């Protein structure tokens, strides 16, 4: 009875697979699902007097995300401050993704077209910033951008401006900082995509009288697209939850979601709101990832 022995082998294989994945599953349950559950529960509780939570069910936190109740006359209005912060986060993350693509694509293309021996060196150079702590790199950017910093001093020395441009503590500063920090995350997957690219196709394109622009658009871009999408996700998701960069370069006034959540657990003394905001952030990230999965499976149905 070959079929039943095949069944047995199949059952054994499935069992072994489950057994082998047990450590990972336990880790996921304890390390990801557990804490997430706590966050979800906290978002439905009342805020404690100074910090923490009171164990009483309440929908206040979820109400506060969208609506604002005036502390003096109890009138209810749309919580535009929260929406502003969410919009700023999404906008800056999208702009960061675009900026890293604009700088990352030529960089990755440049590296992939070097002689194979040189590529390792160029890739190595790309990873050097990772040797330094994120906080230190952000402070370095601050040193460049601040009013008496490198950039403003330079511009004043060559006479382009007479008074310093206020870049630090603006959305622009946060954008510059994030684009710098996340650039390698765009370059590496783009490089991987271009590296596999057969450059004889470019030659073939030219032979068929395609212009440089047509070759770029019709031959190169479709092939690097998966790399670009992977890179975009790698940049967009951490940008959305960025904390250190907007904290240091945004000056406590131009907050992103990450800082706003932190505020609720500290000076804001509203843990349930912080928990609810974290859940919302999670939903946004989840949506972005879902979109990525859909786009990438459409590109490559057998992948």
């Amino acid at each position: 009875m070959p079929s039943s022995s095949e069944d047995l082998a199949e059952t054994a294989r499935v069992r072994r697979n489950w057994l082998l994945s047990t450590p990972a599953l336990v880790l996921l349950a304890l390390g990801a699902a557990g804490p997430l559950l706590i966050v979800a529960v906290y978002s439905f509780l009342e805020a404690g007097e100074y910090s923490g939570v009171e164990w009483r069910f309440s929908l206040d936190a979820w109400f506060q995300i969208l609506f604002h109740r005036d502390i003096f006359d109890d009138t209810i209005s749309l919580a535009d401050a929260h929406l502003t912060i969410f919009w700023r986060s999404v906008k800056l993350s999208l702009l960061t993704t675009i900026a890293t693509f604009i700088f990352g694509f030529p960089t990755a293309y440049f590296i992939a077209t070097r002689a194979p021996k040189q590529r390792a060196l160029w890739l190595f150079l790309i990873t050097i910033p990772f040797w330094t702590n994120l906080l230190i790199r952000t402070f370095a950017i601050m040193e460049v951008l601040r009013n008496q910093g490198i950039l403003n001093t330079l511009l004043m020395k060559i006479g382009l401006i007479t008074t310093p441009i206020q870049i630090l503590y603006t959305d622009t500063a946060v954008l510059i900082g994030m684009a710098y920090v996340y650039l390698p995350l765009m370059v590496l997957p783009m490089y991987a995509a271009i590296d596999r690219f057969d450059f004889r196709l470019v030659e073939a394109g030219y032979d068929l009288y395609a212009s440089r622009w047509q070759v770029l658009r019709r031959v190169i871009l479709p092939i690097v697209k998966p790399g670009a999408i992977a890179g975009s996700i790698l940049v967009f998701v951490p940008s959305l939850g960025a904390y250190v960069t907007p904290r240091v370069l945004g000056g406590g006034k131009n907050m992103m979601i990450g800082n706003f959540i932190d505020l609720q657990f500290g000076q804001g003394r509203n843990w349930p709101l912080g928990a609810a905001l974290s859940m919302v952030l999670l939903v946004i990230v989840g949506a972005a990832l879902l979109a990525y999965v859909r786009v990438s499976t459409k590109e490559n149905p057998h992948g």
Partner: protein
Amino acid sequence: MKKLLTSVAALATVASMASAEGELNIFNWGNYTNPDLIKKFEETYDVKVTVTDFDSNTTALTKIEAGGHGFDIVVPTHSYIPIYVEKGLLMKPGIPEMENYHNLAPQWVDVDWDPKREYSVPWQWGTTGVAVNTKAYSGDVNTAAIFMDPPAELVGKVNVVPEMQDVISMALMYVGGTPCTTDKTMLKAARDALVAAKPKWMSMDYGMTEKMSNGDVMASVNWNGSTFRIRNNNPDVVYGYPKEGYIVWMDNAAILNDAKNADNAKLFINFIMDPENAAMISSFARYANGITGSEAFMPDDMKTAPEIVVPADLVAAGKFTGACPKEAQDMYTAIWTELQK
């Protein structure tokens, strides 16, 4: 940056003392603890000291309440001491029986936030006013309008240190109220004035000692000692005492109830009541302390500094607010939350 270097130096000290018998973990404001004082304590008692920074009273309270922090000593502002006591977070280490207790200046012994000094001893006291770079604005600096209604030259260039108690109390006095009031009309006026002023601020951040010294920030709500240090680096910066009312405060060192190194913490509390050691605290952070006889050990420039010696006509505008009643405190928090959004 200086703060960063200090912490690195502190770490290096810690590393070299790794063989020391006991430990002591201090939770204090950033850029506020003289490394030489810590070194002297470590050498005297063979104790390894770790100093951890906080940047606001609320952050410190939240971290301590959450538990698992491992700190032995905390240095909250006077208005927060009753909150710590009410929550049972502080120990009564028998301060009045300590050897150096008699050095406490009489006016700082029977204080309303800690009668008879059962829980805490003075660390430093000072004022909260405004620091202004005269290169950016040369008008009158003795007014809270610097941040409540910034003059055209300072719009978009003012920082407000995000310290709830000080900022809201100053806003209340600016609109004609008194700190810790429960009068809803006054609180609402203060809230509205703050919300209207916020778009004219550049940032709500700490670290003004560095940022105003190097000219990145032109004006800020700031503490007097910090402004003193800024002026030493950048002579253009002056300190203003808002005539509408400014804040007088005292930070106090206290031992946490769950301190693991309570004995070392008691040694430290007694240690900082010694005039010479108290003078070390002051000569670093540039605030006055509450210890009699410490003046003799302080640098001369402290005795004449305009940040320390309040002009005679502005003495009366200084308000020592103590702890607000709960009702007022709740309103402060609600206003602050709204302002932070």
